[in-house]
């Protein structure tokens, strides 16, 4: 097992990014994004996020979760409170091998520090490495503190909360 989310991230990449989605709670959606959990073990998981063009998410946190963002493709401005968030448009170009210039770049997003996204016309795709410190992993889409993305997001959060309440009360 890993001591923190950065160790998990580095292990996952070195292991060749295994695609091993769980049976339980693998897919979530909001008004402008969908996620697939690619790998989950214990309190650690990695989710793939694919986001719509021109979408945004307001500043938010994921309580109890340390995360690390990894750029894959598209046009993503990832912002973290307290950090100098450089304009990512300057890197909106291809590497010689045909991948995005920012492919593989990572930013740690510690528990409790707000972050927010802005997506360009190409849409966006990134990996979210997560360490759920005090509960079993589900999706950071539903472990969300802050203004939501919209009504679909609200519904997804409500559905998971409802399922959780049913389990708590023994009603299935």
């Amino acid at each position, binding site marked *: 097992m890993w001591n923190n989310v950065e160790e998990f991230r580095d292990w996952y990449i070195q292991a060749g990014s295994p695609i091993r989605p769980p049976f339980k709670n693998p897919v979530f959606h909001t008004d402008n994004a969908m*996620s697939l959990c690619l790998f989950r073990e214990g309190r650690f998981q990695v989710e793939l996020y*694919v986001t719509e063009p021109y979408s945004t998410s307001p500043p938010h946190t994921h309580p109890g979760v340390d995360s690390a963002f990894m750029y894959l493709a598209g046009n993503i401005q990832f912002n973290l409170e307290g950090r100098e968030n450089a304009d990512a448009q300057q890197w909106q170009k291809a590497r010689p091998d*045909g991948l995005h210039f920012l492919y593989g770049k990572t930013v740690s997003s510690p528990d409790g520090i707000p972050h927010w996204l802005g997506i360009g016309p190409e849409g966006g795709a990134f990996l979210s490495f997560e360490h759920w410190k005090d509960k079993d992993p589900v999706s950071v889409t539903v472990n969300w503190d802050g203004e939501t993305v919209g009504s679909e997001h609200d519904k997804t959060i409500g559905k998971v909360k409802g399922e959780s309440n049913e389990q708590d009360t023994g009603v299935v």
Partner: protein
Amino acid sequence: MKEWNEVEAFKDWWVASGCPIKPPFEYPIHITDMAYALTIYRKGQYQIELYICKPNTETQVHAHPGIESLSVYLTGNLSFAKDGGAFPDLSQYQKEGANGTHLLLGKSLESINGTPHALKVNEEGGSFLLFQRWANKKPRSVAVEYDGVTLGHKHDKQIEVANVE
């Protein structure tokens, strides 16, 4: 440039190479009202799209002309119907497999050579890989090389954008 003589050989090569996730800079993401797709690997006339599908959605019968494809199950609850036939009942496989994964993880679902098919996704949502060989065009996404009734305004917009570019 290394090429393959069929989509199955491409799939075998990609798996043997450790399943690299390397989305291209050019046209990696395609969105419809039903699914979000990321091209996770592209080389020459071959590519792999990873589809993440919304719960309780279904396509009508459609085709992707000039594209040979092979779908591989990842997770969730989905099935393909071929040539206008019924959706196969996969409910007996809707259970957990090794390491907490879906029992059908890695199983090939359908091999389609531009022929009509449909996709149905149940309440869990679902995800699959689509290995593709494009015969005559530069690969982009099967979502925009689509012969059939589209999935809604997002899908229409995606096709429109692709045609302009």
